[in-house]
């Protein structure tokens, strides 16, 4: 399967502050990739580089083989872009904005747009600026669906949406992407949403990529073990297999890619007395926090 997006040795700084160095990411054709990271980890920076709104200090991102800084109009027509906050030309109404965009895209399909608009309780001449956040999200999504792009880049699509609109957005999007073999690169700060939507996960921390793999692989390989130490002075953080460790008094949450047997044997071989050892099932949000830490 070929890659729609390839970022090679991407390095960027804001002044002297490093965002990341030699970052390599790729998005497979037909997959839905979710970029997860804490605030300031570089999610929006990556989206901006991908859309040509930020020139990286070095390295490059290729979209359909073209450098994202110099995309040709034909390639831009293949990319649907959702700006954080579902920003659109809010001085237009839903008819005007559909008429405006339809002039740019040869494959324009108005039906999905009007299907979504029919669910909104807005008057035909109501300006987008007077709509609720949820309604605006549907306008932005409807326009992307009508554009019928091959690749969708969505920057924090869940921002400002109530649970109902988030669910509607995700269900529409996943159904659309899977039925028409579309590729999606998305970020969201609400990780439960991602779990319903994505195939692949890319987790970034400050300056580096912590994980990039299919979400099913990540959820089975990344594990959490809870136990209580007899001696809370034992330092497990320095062990290579420990990806993160959260301790409250003598209660330990240990996150690792190693198996239950491996961890138990390690504790036993090193004479670390403990009790209540158990593996805890995680949702994606737990795993994300487990990998990146709580702060």
């Amino acid at each position, binding site marked *: 399967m070929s890659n729609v997006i390839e970022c090679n040795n991407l390095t960027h700084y804001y002044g002297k502050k490093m965002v990341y160095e030699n970052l390599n990411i790729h998005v497979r054709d037909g997959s839905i990739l979710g970029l997860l990271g804490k605030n300031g980890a570089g999610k929006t920076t990556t989206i901006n580089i991908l859309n040509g709104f930020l020139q990286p200090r070095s390295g490059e991102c290729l979209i359909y083989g073209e450098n994202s800084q110099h995309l040709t*109009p034909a390639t*831009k027509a293949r990319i649907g872009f959702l*700006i954080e906050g579902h920003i659109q030309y809010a*001085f237009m109404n839903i008819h005007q904005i559909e008429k405006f965009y339809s*002039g740019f895209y040869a494959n324009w399909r108005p039906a999905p747009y009007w299907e979504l608009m029919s669910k909104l309780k807005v008057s035909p001449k109501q300006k987008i600026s007077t709509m609720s956040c949820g309604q605006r999200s549907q306008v932005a999504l409807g326009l992307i669906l009508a554009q019928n792009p091959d690749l969708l880049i969505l920057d924090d699509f869940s921002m400002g949406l109530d649970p109902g609109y988030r669910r509607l957005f995700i269900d529409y999007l996943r159904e659309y992407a899977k039925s028409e073999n579309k590729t999606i690169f998305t970020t969201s700060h609400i990780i439960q949403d991602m779990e319903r939507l994505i195939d692949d996960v890319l987790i970034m921390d400050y300056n580096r990529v912590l994980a990039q793999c299919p979400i099913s692989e990540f959820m089975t390989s990344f594990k959490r073990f809870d136990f209580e130490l007899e001696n809370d002075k034992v330092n497990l953080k320095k062990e290579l297999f420990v990806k993160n460790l959260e301790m409250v008094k003598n209660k330990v949450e240990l996150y690792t890619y190693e198996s239950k047997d491996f961890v138990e044997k390690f504790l036993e071989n090193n004479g670390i007395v403990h009790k209540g050892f158990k593996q805890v099932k995680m949702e994606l949000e737990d795993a994300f926090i487990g990998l990146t830490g709580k702060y």
Partner: protein
Amino acid sequence: MWKSIVYKEWIKIRWFLVGFTILGMLGLGYVFLKVQRGFTFNGGTGFWYNILFMGMQFFGYFKYIPLLGGLIIGIAQYFPETVNKRIKLTFHLPLNENKVLLMMHIFGIVSLLASYLLLLLAFISLSSIYFPSQMIIESVISVFPWFLAGFAAYFFVALIVLEPVWMYRFFYALVAGFFVTIYIKSPVIAAYGPAIPGLSLLTILLSVALLFSAYRFRKGEM
């Protein structure tokens, strides 16, 4: 694509353009009411004496109206693009980024030009009621730089509004203030005659200044 660009830009500026043109016409109406009043109360001789020997510009009240038009249309057209960085949507359209901006710009220039031509036509028509053709020609030469000032203001507004860094905006505003006063400095009738080709060239050069702000935005300056 031209049709879509024109459609969007028209939605943004239509009421401002119509409003400004009406305001300009009212301004002209006021100018010629004063002319009428001058002829009535000072008599023809007195009024002509003021024009010929006292250097009175009967159209002086009109001086800042084209400038105001450039500011209004520039802000109406470019400010909505910067709210929530909507210019990203414009740059994402399947067109070259500079091309799409220049298309928007050309629409703005043509709209402003249409409004200015209407005002100039009204100015010439009303002038012809009171003054001979030689006087009208001198007056048109006098007001021409004011219209150029309007275009310069429009180009500077585009440069300033699209600039992503506030400090640069402030700097550009100072430069704009300096440049625009060049066009409206002399109060002497037709004094700008010899300078019109130079001023026109300067204005044409300013017309592409917005591409620099757009380039800085796309580079990620902030």
